[in-house]
Every structure is written in structure tokens, then in C-alpha cells.
């Protein structure tokens, strides 16, 4: 589901950013229009309610962008731990399809003992800042 969630998160951020930018542009246009009409006729029309309404939409969109941006969807990686029966040599790799715990996978490169899969698990990938 993490892929689907990531896709939906991206779509939501794009959509709300678009609404935010559009709202800001409309507010700027309305302000300029107000000033221009005021200069031409000497009496500017009252566009304040529209501006406030659109600003509320912009604020809501900004909050949504921030909310979706803050959602962290962890990336997981699969790990397989191989262990030697004799000397305790340990190696980690990505599991292959059909691998299972306690499957014998070969000989130990150090002592020639039997290497078996000790565990298969998933863990959260460390983010760049945490590495």
C-alpha cells in the first residue's frame, strides 16, 4: 500500500498547491482591479468579501499541503541473515524468492561449514539524514 499512499500523497500535494497558487493569483488580480477601478472612477467597488473568501481557500489549501507533506511513508527493505553452523560467520543479503529460514544455502567461506538462513525480516530503510 505504501506505493499507492505515496502516489496519493503526491497527487494531493500537487492538487492543493495548484489551488493555493490559483487563489493567490486571483487575490492579487482582485486587488489590482480594485486599485485600477478606484483610480479610474474615483470610487473602488468593494471586493473585500471575495478576497477574504479566496484567502480562506488559500489558507485551507496551504494547511492541506503542509499536512500531506508531513506524512512520512516509511520505505522498507528485506534482509536475509546467513549464518555458519560451525564458526558463527554471518552475512547479510537480500532474500531470493523461495528462500526460507533454516534452508541450507552453501559452504562457509571461512571454515567450510554449512551456511543456513538464520532469519528473513524487513526493516525500515534509514533516511539520508540518519545515515
Amino acid at each position, binding site marked *: *500500500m505504501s506505493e*499507492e499512499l505515496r502516489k496519493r500523497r503526491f497527487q494531493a500535494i500537487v492538487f492543493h498547491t495548484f489551488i493555493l497558487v490559483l487563489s493567490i493569483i486571483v487575490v492579487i488580480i482582485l486587488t489590482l482591479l480594485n486599485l485600477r477601478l478606484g483610480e479610474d472612477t474615483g470610487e473602488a467597488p468593494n471586493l473585500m468579501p471575495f478576497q477574504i473568501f479566496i484567502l480562506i481557500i488559500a489558507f485551507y489549501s496551504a494547511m492541506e499541503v503542509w499536512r500531506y507533506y508531513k506524512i512520512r511513508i516509511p520505505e522498507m527493505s528485506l534482509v536475509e541473515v546467513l549464518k555458519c553452523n560451525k564458526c558463527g560467520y554471518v552475512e547479510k543479503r537480500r532474500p531470493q*524468492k523461495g*528462500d*526460507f*529460514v*533454516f534452508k541450507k544455502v552453501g559452504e562457509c567461506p571461512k571454515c567450510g561449514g554449512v551456511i543456513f538462513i538464520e532469519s*528473513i*525480516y524487513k*526493516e525500515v530503510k534509514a533516511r539520508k539524514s540518519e545515515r
Partner: protein
Amino acid sequence: MNGNIATDFIMWFLFLAFFAYIMRELEIWRIIRDIERYISLYKSIRDKALVVTLNTFKEVAAKTKSRLDLKMLEERVMGLVESVLIEPVSMDPFGIVGKLKHIVLTGDRTATQEVKRLIPEASETDVENLKNLIAASRSLNIIYKSVDHVYRLGRKFKSIWLLYQLQALLPFVTEAMRALESSLEAFTNGFPVGDGAGPLLAARFIKKFGGNELKIEEIAEETIMAEVPFKNRKVLVIKAKGPSGVTGRLDDAFEEIVVKRKIPVKMVITVDAALKFEGEKTGTIAEGVGVAIGGLGIEKFNIEKTAAREKIPLYAVLIKMSEIDALSVMSREVCEAINVALKNVERIIEERSQENDIVVLIGVGNTIGISP
């Protein structure tokens, strides 16, 4: 003057009524939008599960060089996904567990036959993994359809209370959907899941104390028993037979030991994965008294019945995890917690039994990706 006040009053009243109506409509629209978003997510997950199941069937067929009629395969798989298990009537509950077990076993055997009919050359492990995939797809399909049903009814009758109830349940439903979806990866590749904590602990116990001359026998269908010496005691370790995705017939195995072979068992320890509370950490260990087996309760009932009759103490060790952790590939936290739980099991055996006693250790759960 009086006429104006009356008109103002009527206008205000109409405005308030209109405002209340609009607010209610807006609220319904907002809830409907929210539910629709979830339903579209559930539908995409259900469709993904079907695609993964069909692709895995094709992969297994290619691996075994079996010929497949794709149209027929799709129809048969959809048939299996849409199939239902009808629970026995419970008006007279006497003997209901036996009836339920019979129905569940019939369902299991039918699923095995269906998969084998589609791919006769498939190995036992592949058949079980395909059955698990079908079961996950079936659950996803049922959840999606149930949520969609309530949503459509709520929308049809504009019932805000029905929609409120559905919306309130969505976080729990989403958790279940996410858990089932994450199980697809494990069942496709045959990797251990979090629910396999019990069988993995049993397997580690066998590996640690079993030695080279270990006796492992298939004591019941899809269930193995290993006789393991431990500190001058004999521990009979029972678990489902891996590495295929089965949970075994643990109650049958226990009955075979205690009733048929009349082995004087002094103590039973069950180890299982248990659901954690939201505030608890994954991998927390809890000890208790009783039989730690989830599911429909058939095996739990049978083991309790036999143990109570023979007056055998029942102890349990639980490894806590979320629903998602239980069904997806085993997490590192669970994997590490198993070692801690293993030490607890060793301590319980040492403290609560005497030398030369016979102890039964049952690793409960799906043994996918875990041998023996």
C-alpha cells in the same frame, strides 16, 4: 411597522432553515467524498490482490511447465475468491465446534483440490502459498464489498447516521486492508510473516537444543513434532510443517500425544503472536495462563478440553504486534523479540517443571518460510 417585523422574522426563519439544510447537505457531501476516497483505495487494493494472485498462478505454472488456459484460470480464481464459508447454525450450540471444524477442513481440502486441478504439478509449498493468496484476496474482496454496500445504502437513503457510522469505522477497516495487502508480498515470495513468530520460536528451540540425532515426525496432517532434550526434561515441540504457508492441526497433534499415545504431559506452553494496543511497542512479550491460539477458536477449544480433562497446566507466551506486522513479512523487531521470548520459554520450563518431566511446547501461527 408590524408588517415589516413579520416579514423580517419570516425572512430570518427562512434563511436559518435554508442555512441548516445547506449545512446538512454539505456535511453529507463531505462524508460521502471521504468514504468514496477510501472505497477507491480499497478497490485498487482488491484489484491489485487479484492481479498478484493470477500472476503467481502463471509463475507457478511456468515453473512446473504446466499448460494454462488463461480465461479458464481467471474464471476459476474469481470463483475461489467469491466462494463463501457458511458457518453452522448456532441455535443449539452443543457440538458446534466439531461442526465448524468439519466445515473449515472441507473448505481447506476443496481449495487444495481446486489449486491442484489448475496446476497439477505444483509443489506442496506452492499450493499452500497460492491458497493463502486466494484467502487474502477473498478477505479483501469481502471487506471492499461490505464497505461499498453500506456506503451505497447510506447514499441511497441520504442516511447521515449510516454514513457517520461507516466513516467512524474506516480507520479500523483501513488497518485490516493494509495488513491483508502487505501479506501479498510474503505469500508470493514465501517469506516468513509476523504471525510466524510462534513457529519460528519452536524451530529455533529445535535447532538450539535438538542436536544432530533429532527425531521429527509428522504427528498430524501438516503438523510436526520433535522430541528435544532440555535440562533433563523431554520437550515435545509441535509446530505446523514448514516452509509452506500452513497453520497445522495443533489440536489433533496434542490429542495424539495425550489421548492416543497416553504420554504423561506435565505442562503445555503455547507461543503465539498477539495484537498489540496502539500505545504498545511491537515485539513486547507478555506471559500468561491459558491457550494462546487465535482464529475461529476450534483448536483452542479442543486443546483446553483435553488439558482440562487431564489436568495439565496451560501457560502462554505472547509476542505483541500490530495487524499489519502479523500479516506482512516479519519485521526486525519481531525477529529480535523471538529470541527474548525463547529465553522466557526456557525459564518457564526450568521453573515450572521438574527433571524427567515431559513438556509440550506449541508454536502457533502460519509457518510460511520457516522450516522444519
